[in-house]
């Protein structure tokens, strides 16, 4: 092979590489194709219908926040939706085997699942919230010593309080059987603060519209939609649809309806 041949081969190879790169860039910026993303012509969503208010049976039909969110996303993408009701244990396997296209099932982002699933941006946060009475300076997670905190025994809040104690805070612990009792104790002035999950607080406050409180998140537990890791087109469509719905305020409206 002469020097000229080598130069020619190098140029040809470089040109081919450039073409491939250009094609990849062009492909990346192409709008996702819903026919490729959902070849069945519908979006099959795996839900857990035993988890109110996210999904539950209402007179033989599925209802709840996750169901309405699924409808809104399918509407945004422009395809009909079909729900597949699966217990929590089978959700991710249903996604892996292609029984469903995505999961909207009050799923917290789970790092252990990221080899099989890709999560959208969150649509809800069920982190722990430290709730206190209004008017006073909010009780902060940095200054808890001497604070009487009501919480549900053996819950996530319980674990968090034990961790704070191991960090040196001397907390006046007030364990209750249920988080509603902990919030009762705060509302009735028997506790300085209550530590509960965000859903418990929302559900409690929904039933007591006159009750005033302030709160701050002390942990983040994002709920997101899961798509199979290799379903790139589907992921793009769902994530974009969710972003659009969040920007338009539709997600906030759906959440507010159920809490």
């Amino acid at each position, binding site marked *: 092979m002469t020097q000229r041949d080598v130069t020619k081969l190098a140029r040809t190879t470089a040109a081919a590489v450039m073409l491939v790169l250009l094609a990849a860039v062009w492909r990346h910026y192409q709008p996702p194709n819903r026919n490729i993303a959902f070849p069945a012509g519908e979006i099959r969503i795996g839900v857990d219908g*035993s988890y*109110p208010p996210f999904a539950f049976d209402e007179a033989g039909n599925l209802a709840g926040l996750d169901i309405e969110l699924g409808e809104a996303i399918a509407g945004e993408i422009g395809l009909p939706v079909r729900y597949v009701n*699966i217990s929590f244990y*089978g959700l991710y*396997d249903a996604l892996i*085997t292609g029984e469903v296209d995505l999961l909207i099932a*009050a799923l917290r982002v789970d790092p252990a699942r990221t080899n099989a699933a890709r999560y959208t941006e969150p649509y809800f946060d069920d982190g722990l919230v430290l709730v206190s009475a209004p008017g006073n300076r909010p009780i902060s997670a940095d200054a808890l010593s001497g604070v009487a905190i009501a919480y*549900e025994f053996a819950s996530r809040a319980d674990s968090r309080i034990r961790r704070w104690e191991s960090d040196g805070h001397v907390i006046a612990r007030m364990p209750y*059987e*249920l988080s509603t009792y902990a919030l009762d104790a705060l509302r009735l002035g028997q506790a300085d603060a209550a530590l509960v999950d965000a859903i418990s607080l929302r559900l409690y406050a929904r039933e007591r519209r006159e009750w005033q409180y302030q709160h701050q998140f002390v942990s983040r537990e994002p709920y997101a939609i899961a798509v199979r890791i290799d379903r790139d087109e589907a992921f793009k469509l769902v994530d974009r649809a969710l972003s659009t719905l969040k920007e338009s305020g539709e997600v906030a409206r759906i959440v507010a309806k159920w809490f």
Partner: protein
Amino acid sequence: MSAKSSLSSPVKDAAKRQRQSILVIIGLLMLFALVLRLRPAPRNLLPAEARVVKTAKPHVCAHTLLENEVEEKKILRSLELVRELGATTIVQFFPWAYAETRAEHFSWDRFDRIVRHAERQGLQVIARLGLAPPWLNDDPDATLNTLPERDDPEFAQYAAAFAARYAGTVDEIIIWNEPNLSFEWGYQPVNAERYVRLLQETYPAIKAANPAAVVLAGALAPTLEERGSSAGLNDLDFLRDMYAAGGGDYFDALAIHSYGLKEPPSAEPAENRLNFRRAELLRQIMLENGDGQKQASITEGGWNDHPRWAHAVRPSQRSAFTVEAFEYIEANWDWLERLCLWAFRYPADLNSYPDNYTLVSADFVMKPIYYALQDYARGWEREGTLWLPPPETE
């Protein structure tokens, strides 16, 4: 000595010295790499002396999930807590995928660790076997529950190897899990004949490896699925189908899954209801098929106390129902050896309602049910309460 060799000698020596230097440098680099890899010897966490379970109720048992536990000290702590609970036995999952990491190459270290610790805590072990290795199936849609029938002999080989290795220590083995659910076959259709063929392949292999082994079959999911459902088939019809397919010859005892859901343990059973005493309907099918001499164990069961799950009860109800269930067994079910509660502890939170099946949280907080069950198993009377009474809201 020739002139040629005398001339070339200094050159040869230099080359030799150069080779030696390179070898020394390589040797030093290898030594350096070896030093970098050195770690302190792991501390032996195995208690020096064997412990004994102190219990008044030998039918108390818990399902552990230690197969995914990374830290040995957490395995030790979990099993210590099981023993202190007063449970005599654990059901433990030993996934095939974890042992046979490539064809016919078994790696037992993880299982050895669990079995050694259980033995040292004085606990009996019932092994649940399942979960196919990924190398077995290159279908991208397959899950670890996918087991094509052609691979049944491979599974039997694993079961036999397991039975032989732990003979005398682990002598009760459950074949597969909830085979009446399509999820447990990688979302393939379920049928009892298929499961019976797996038993036919596996049962003799286990017996040949450990003649004293007790093979448990079933472990059926309590469900009301009708024939033709894509999700599976109800446990009662599935067991009837197992007998019809000749499955009765290929197990020594029945593994039962019995969950109370929202009903107390005394609630009457019925074919169209899911509750704790559904186990009696499975027992009746055993009797109808001439298997009355065989024992059974509930290898999964209990109640859930998640605040929002539709099928959960309150924490105090969960504690009370669970103890009542054990009392009910003592009084009424002489054919049942144990009730193994699902689940003792998860290595990490699942972040949903299944977390509220556990007796101990992932970070080792004992739940009310743990204390209630401990009082029952050990015959203790505990003073004081774990939580405050509800605030007076009126």
